[in-house]
């Protein structure tokens, strides 16, 4: 329980992971066929069996890290290395089978643009639902609604059902809501970044402003240029394990070497 004590004593640590492992049960893959073994052999994840001989995928193994206020952490690694799973674990969605996750502060996950989006509702109503999902009170939402609406730059479209929106418009709507209050912890998956260059620039300015509010930003991405611009620390995941963590430049450089060597 030393971690708990550390967390309360050390005010700078916002999220701490201690020996966290996340294991997914795979109920469909019940068979122990040789074919499956061979097929899965080369994949990035670790497929194994638990005590009951059930097929399990070890998505994260023994992850320990501490994220402190002001950190802009980039998660990098190949597909299936566990980046999204780690984001979800940080968000509290997956409770680890081993180890523990401690965090303080309001977490705003931005993992899926479509979270809580009801295609038939108009933009304003979707902003309301989304903001509620992120934990804003009804009064807070109504107060911030004009500001959110302005940031989306969607204008009259906000009165239209969101099924008429393009992916980029949807992103603007969601990004505006997710970032309408100063989230203490913003978790983001790169896959949602589909906006045009101008919007990304705007988003970048917004994210920059969070960091100044001494909050935490974690981004899972393959875009090494974006990562270098947005983040100051890197964490390289390989098959669910931490391969390297440290200053962003060093981690990106090592990762580049590794990728080009293959």
């Amino acid at each position: 329980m030393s971690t708990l004590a550390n967390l309360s004593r050390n005010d700078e640590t916002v999220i701490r992971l201690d020996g966290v492992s996340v294991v997914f049960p795979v109920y469909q893959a019940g068979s122990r066929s040789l074919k499956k073994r061979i097929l899965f052999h080369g994949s990035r994840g670790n497929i194994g069996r638990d005590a009951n001989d059930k097929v399990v995928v070890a998505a994260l193994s023994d992850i320990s890290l501490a994220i402190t206020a002001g950190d802009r952490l980039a998660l990098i690694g190949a597909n299936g290395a566990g980046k999204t799973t780690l984001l979800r674990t940080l968000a509290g969605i997956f409770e680890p089978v081993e180890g523990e996750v401690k965090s303080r502060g309001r977490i705003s996950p931005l993992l899926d643009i479509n979270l809580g989006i009801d295609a038939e509702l108009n933009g304003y109503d979707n902003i309301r639902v989304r903001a509620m999902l992120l934990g804003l009170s009804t009064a807070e939402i109504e107060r911030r609604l004009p500001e959110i609406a302005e940031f989306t730059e969607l204008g009259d479209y906000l009165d239209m059902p969101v099924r008429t929106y393009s992916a980029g418009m949807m992103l603007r709507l969601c990004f505006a809501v997710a970032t309408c209050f100063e989230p203490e912890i913003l978790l983001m998956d790169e896959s949602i970044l589909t906006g045009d260059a101008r919007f990304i620039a705007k988003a970048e300015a917004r994210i920059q402003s969070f960091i100044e509010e001494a909050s935490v930003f974690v981004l899972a991405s393959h875009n090494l240029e974006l990562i270098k611009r947005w983040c100051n620390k890197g964490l390289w995941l390989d098959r669910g394990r931490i391969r390297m963590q440290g200053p962003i430049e060093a981690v990106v450089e090592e990762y580049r070497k590794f990728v080009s060597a293959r």
Partner: protein
Amino acid sequence: MIQTKKISRFKLAVDDVHGAIELWPLWFRLGWNDILHRYRRSTLGPLWFTASMAITTVALGLVYSQVLNLPARELMPHVCIGLIVWAFINSIILEAGDLFTGAESYIRHIKLPYSIYVFRFVLSKVIIFAHDFPIAVVTLAFFRIWPGPVALYAVPGFLLLVVNGGLISISLGLVSARFRDIPRIIASLSQIIFLITPIIWMPSLLGERSYLAEANPFFHLIELVRAPLLGSAPSVRTLVVTLALTVINLLLAATLFARYRNRIAYWI
């Protein structure tokens, strides 16, 4: 050590429910949206619930009063209220299996108390019930049946039904998230339950074999609301059976929820 782990699990489950209650504006909105969503762009809107239930009631009431050779005045109100209450029960047991799997897009992307999805689900069923209920009033008025103040027993009766609905939804939602066959099994059972429960027929028709109705918990759940509306308080047996059912339901839901709540994200 194991003991403390058990207690903390139970506490986490209670915290989950508590957290969800505090987030009532969220599940109120989601539950309400579920209703709006289903009937958006249709002219009658949610009144479709009322219309289809009214037609079913009249059709079954008329035909079965002939089949069973009972006066419509006696059978119709019984069938009408029976069908409305059954529709509530049935929609819960049929759809509870999708409670968590259907909320996958939320569960996998944001951490919220899991009870939110249960509350949202039950709320939308209560809203549909509220749409059906006026048919019962109209039917009673049409046959000039005045149940008197005893009808007020239907209010706590319905609340007990809602509590049981919520509890069974937790259990069914959890078990179905893990074992995807459960909703299929329930779908086939629901037909049988509908036919063997005195909903469109009177229990008195069983004669000496009335135990066939009395042994059926669904009969008692329906009677909880139907008897008062037809002018008599629910029988002691109905109360005992439904209260016992509530306790069992509570223990089952609490055990499953405390034990498997944190597995939901992995299962869906």
